[in-house]
C-alpha cells in the first residue's frame, strides 16, 4: 500500500498537511533569539518541546515564549524524562494541556548512556495514547517488526533513529530504515543522530518523508545558517526521490561521452 504524502510538496501526518519536511528540536540552543532564528531559517512547521516542573526560580526566562509569535508552527511536546509507559502517558496528557496540539513525540529512553528507546514501553504508551486520540509520533529503534506493530495500534508516524541521540553518527541504520520504508503506510521520519545536511538529503532520497534534527543545528557553528542548509537539503532530497535516482551500477564505468575519437577519422 502507498504511504500518505507521496506528493512532492505536501505530506500528511495525523490528518494534518505540512509542506516542510524538516522538524526541528528546540533544545541545546544558547539563547532564545538563536533558537527562534533557526526555526525561521529552517522553514519548519513542527517543532518539538519538552515538559519540566517549574523550578525553584520560577521567574527564570521563558525560552519558548518567543515561539508563540511565529505563525504556522505546530508545537509537538515530547515525553523525554519518562522511564516507562505510564510516565510517558502522563507527560503526553500534560503536554497536550500546555500546547493544545494533538501531536506527541513518545520517547522513552531509560538509560542515559545510550538513550536508546525502550521498544516495549514505547509500544505500550503508543497504544494507550493513540486510543485517546493523540497523533502519536514514536521515537523508536529502526526495527521493521516494531514499526508494523506501532502502525497497527494507530500511530500517526514512525520515527526511527538514524543513530544515537546527539551522536552525530548519521544514518547508521540505513539498511533497517529501507526495510521500514518498504512496508510503512504512515510517514517515516528519521529522528536522531543526523549531523550534516547531506545525511538529511540522503534520508529523503531513500524515501523517508521527513527528518527531525536538533543537535545538528543547535550545536553547529552557526545554528541559523545551518538550519537554512538543512531546509535546502530536505528539499533537494525529496526532489531527488520524486525524480527517481539512476540505477546503481556494478562498479564498472559507463561512458557519458561518445568513445569514438574526434581527432581520428572514424573507421580509419
Amino acid at each position: 500500500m502507498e504511504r500518505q504524502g507521496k506528493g512532492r510538496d505536501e505530506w500528511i501526518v495525523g490528518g494534518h498537511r505540512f509542506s516542510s519536511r524538516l522538524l526541528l528540536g528546540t533544545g541545546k540552543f544558547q539563547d532564545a533569539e538563536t533558537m527562534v532564528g533557526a526555526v525561521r531559517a529552517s522553514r519548519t512547521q513542527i517543532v518539538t518541546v519538552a515538559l519540566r516542573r517549574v523550578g525553584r526560580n520560577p521567574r527564570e526566562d521563558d525560552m519558548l515564549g518567543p515561539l508563540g509569535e511565529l505563525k504556522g508552527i505546530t508545537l509537538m511536546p515530547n515525553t523525554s524524562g519518562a522511564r516507562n509507559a505510564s510516565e510517558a502517558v502522563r507527560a503526553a496528557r500534560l503536554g497536550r494541556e500546555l500546547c493544545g496540539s494533538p501531536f506527541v513525540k513518545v520517547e522513552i529512553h531509560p538509560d542515559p548512556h545510550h538513550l536508546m528507546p525502550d521498544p516495549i514501553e514505547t509500544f505500550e504508551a503508543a497504544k494507550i495514547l493513540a486510543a485517546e486520540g493523540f497523533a502519536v509520533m514514536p521515537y523508536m529503534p529502526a526495527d521493521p517488526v516494531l514499526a508494523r506493530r506501532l502502525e497497527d495500534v494507530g500511530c500517526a508516524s514512525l520515527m526511527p533513529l538514524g543513530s544515537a541521540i546527539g551522536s552525530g553518527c548519521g544514518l547508521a541504520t540505513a539498511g533497517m530504515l529501507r526495510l521500514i520504508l518498504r512496508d510503512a503506510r504512515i510517514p517515516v521520519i528519521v529522528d536522531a543522530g543526523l549531523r550534516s545536511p547531506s545525511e538529511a538529503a540522503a534520508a529523503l532520497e531513500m524515501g523517508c518523508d521527513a527528518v527531525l534534527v536538533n543537535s545538528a543545528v543547535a550545536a553547529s557553528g552557526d545554528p541559523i545558517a545551518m538550519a537554512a542548509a538543512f531546509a535546502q537539503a530536505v528539499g533537494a532530497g525529496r526532489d531527488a526521490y520524486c525524480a527517481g535516482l539512476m540505477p546503481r551500477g556494478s562498479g564498472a564505468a559507463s561512458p557519458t561521452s561518445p568513445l569514438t575519437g574526434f581527432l581520428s577519422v572514424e573507421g580509419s
Partner: protein
Amino acid sequence: MPWRVFFHSEETGVKLTLNGEAYEANEVESVTALLEEMGIGGRPVVVVLNDDVIPASRRSTCGLREGDHVELFRLVGGG
C-alpha cells in the same frame, strides 16, 4: 481582634506540597492567586492539583487547602 487575623495571615501560610517540596502559601483563595504569589501569573504552565489537571478556565475559582499537592509544569527546549 483584627490584629490576630493579620498575624495569622502573615506568619502561618497554608502548608502545601509544591512540586514535591514543602511550601507555605499566603494566597490560597485560588490557583490564580498562588501563581501570582509565585511570580508566574500569566505564564504558560499546567497545574495539577492532587493528581487532577486544573484547566485554565477553573483556576480563578479553584481554592487550595492545607495538605494539597500542587504540581506545576512548563515547556522548555527539547528535541
